[in-house]
């Protein structure tokens, strides 16, 4: 095993600004294209085996083309990357910025393999485009096999061409539930129903008056609604899965009507048979790299994001951010923000004619994102569908009661006493839920975002870097 030290800008134009881009989803890809256009030497890293991020997750031999949107755009973005240095399968586990120099450390190789190759990147600027993951709220029974996040159902259908079950209930909030239902149907599972927690009032304040803004340029919404109709999938607003039934695996769910606060309405419960459940109540940004770099994060329990200015610049010199780490706005917003971030990181100017398009799209999509949050944002009543013994922290099997009992302790002490959020996922899965439970019980939560290791890495790999080279 050898250590590779990549230094950006050693190939091509000498003296060019070295821009590192972390994340190969819509935001990172658009950033790479814009930074190249502005004359920078670009290095792009992503831990996935393929570029595309969540939106363009694919495999050449397995992805059903009906599930792929805006593919021509992806091919154009990927096409310009022959002028960049691209590392896939590269997990960035350490990031720092000081004295105008950004240093990223990655290990490159098959996911979680032993003996991956170390890669150190040094750059003048970095664009953090690490995206988001699903926010699935706990429900009694949600640890049963057959329950996945909505994003997992999407990823498995798109990337691997499989579904976890044959009869799936989709439940949560937001327009993302629609493509998930379509993907499940195409990949071979009957979707029994899509349950949207928001009520019509919320939707009417959100995207209903301007549904075309959900559509973007691709006509996606029209297609999803068409798919629901074609597969005869009911779409029920103001309702959700409040309990998953089964002993060794999913056998059914309890659906209830939810009030405007997302509190189950007594007397409305009914059982539905199914063998799989897809839960998605929104998305939560992958902030750890931005935090490690020192960027200011703002927000509250409803969502915390990297703070950026008009140029997508964070509070730290040379550190830019784009895409879902700065706010949940969908792929079009990510593309526009990425273009601005990459161009500015490369030393471009905002009043350059090439920025007019991305700036206009960004403005429109941010307004849209604000309405989405108003329509589908998580409401505090959801915690009333938990029972005392519901597992909240899946890694350490910590129940609601255990967390609530310690709610008055400082968060750090609460975590140490209960182990909530201290498992393998470092609180990524349960963080928001734990905060909500602590808040319900009168505590003052927050602080699940900081993580010592940014991506899973083996001790030997860290040790190898620390001692100046990998063990031979």
């Amino acid at each position, binding site marked *: 095993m050898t250590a590779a030290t990549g230094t950006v800008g050693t190939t091509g134009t000498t003296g060019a600004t070295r821009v590192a881009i972390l994340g190969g989803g819509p935001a990172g890809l658009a950033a790479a294209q814009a930074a190249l256009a502005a004359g920078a030497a670009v290095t792009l890293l992503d831990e996935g085996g393929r570029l595309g991020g*969540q939106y363009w997750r694919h495999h050449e031999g397995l992805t059903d083309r009906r599930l792929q949107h805006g593919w021509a755009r992806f091919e154009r973005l990927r096409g310009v990357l022959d002028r960049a240095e691209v590392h896939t399968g590269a997990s960035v586990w350490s990031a720092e910025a000081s004295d105008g120099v950004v240093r990223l450390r990655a290990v490159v190789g098959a996911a979680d*393999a032993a003996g991956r190759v170390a890669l150190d990147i040094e750059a003048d600027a970095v664009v953090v485009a690490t995206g988001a*993951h699903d926010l699935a709220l706990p429900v009694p029974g949600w640890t049963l096999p057959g329950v996945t996040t909505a994003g*997992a*159902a999407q990823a*498995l259908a798109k990337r691997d*061409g499989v579904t976890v079950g044959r009869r799936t209930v989709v439940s949560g909030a937001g327009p993302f539930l629609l493509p998930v239902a379509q993907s499940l149907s195409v990949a071979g599972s009957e979707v029994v129903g899509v349950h949207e927690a928001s009520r019509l009032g919320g939707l009417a304040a959100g995207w209903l008056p301007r549904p075309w803004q959900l559509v973007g340029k691709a006509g996606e919404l029209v297609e999803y609604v068409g798919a629901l109709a074609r597969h005869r999938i009911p779409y029920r607003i103001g309702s959700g899965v409040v309990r998953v039934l089964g002993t060794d695996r999913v056998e059914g769910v309890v659906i209830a009507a939810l009030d405007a606060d997302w509190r189950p309405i007594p007397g409305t419960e009914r059982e539905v048979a199914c063998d799989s459940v897809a839960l998605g109540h929104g998305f939560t940004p992958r902030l750890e790299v931005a935090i490690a770099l020192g960027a200011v994060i703002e927000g509250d329990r409803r969502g915390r994001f990297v703070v950026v200015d008009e140029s997508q610049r964070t509070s730290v010199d040379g550190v830019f951010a784009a895409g879902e780490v700065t706010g949940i706005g969908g792929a079009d917003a990510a593309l526009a923000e990425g273009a601005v971030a990459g161009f500015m990181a490369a030393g471009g100017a905002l009043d350059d004619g090439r920025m007019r398009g991305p700036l206009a799209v960004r403005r429109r999509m941010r307004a849209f994102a604000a309405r989405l949050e108003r329509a589908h944002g998580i409401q505090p009543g959801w915690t009333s569908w938990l029972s005392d013994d519901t597992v909240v922290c899946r890694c350490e*099997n910590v129940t609601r009661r255990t967390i609530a009992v310690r709610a008055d302790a400082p968060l750090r002490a609460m975590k140490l006493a209960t182990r909530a959020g201290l498992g393998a996922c470092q609180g990524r*899965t349960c963080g928001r839920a734990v905060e909500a439970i602590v808040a319900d019980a009168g505590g003052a939560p927050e602080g699940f975002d900081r993580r010592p290791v940014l991506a899973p890495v083996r001790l030997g790999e860290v040790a190898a870097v620390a001692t100046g080279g990998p063990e031979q």
Partner: protein
Amino acid sequence: MIRITVGDEAIEGRDGQTIAGVLIGAGRTAWRTAQTGDRGVFCGIGVCHDCLVTVNDVEGVRACQREAVDGDRVEREVRA
């Protein structure tokens, strides 16, 4: 077509599938023993660590992230 072993059973998958994809394609939904019961895929994108397996004697491999290779030996992990 690829073939991997899970415990002492051989299962077939399609070229390019992740280990999770192969397991699910073969009808399995859970393959790790946790304190509250068996677990399989939850997040599907490498964040939650529910789907960990041992692959070719290396522990802690996220089945949803690792592309399966013909001949891989996959073993269950137990965490009581």
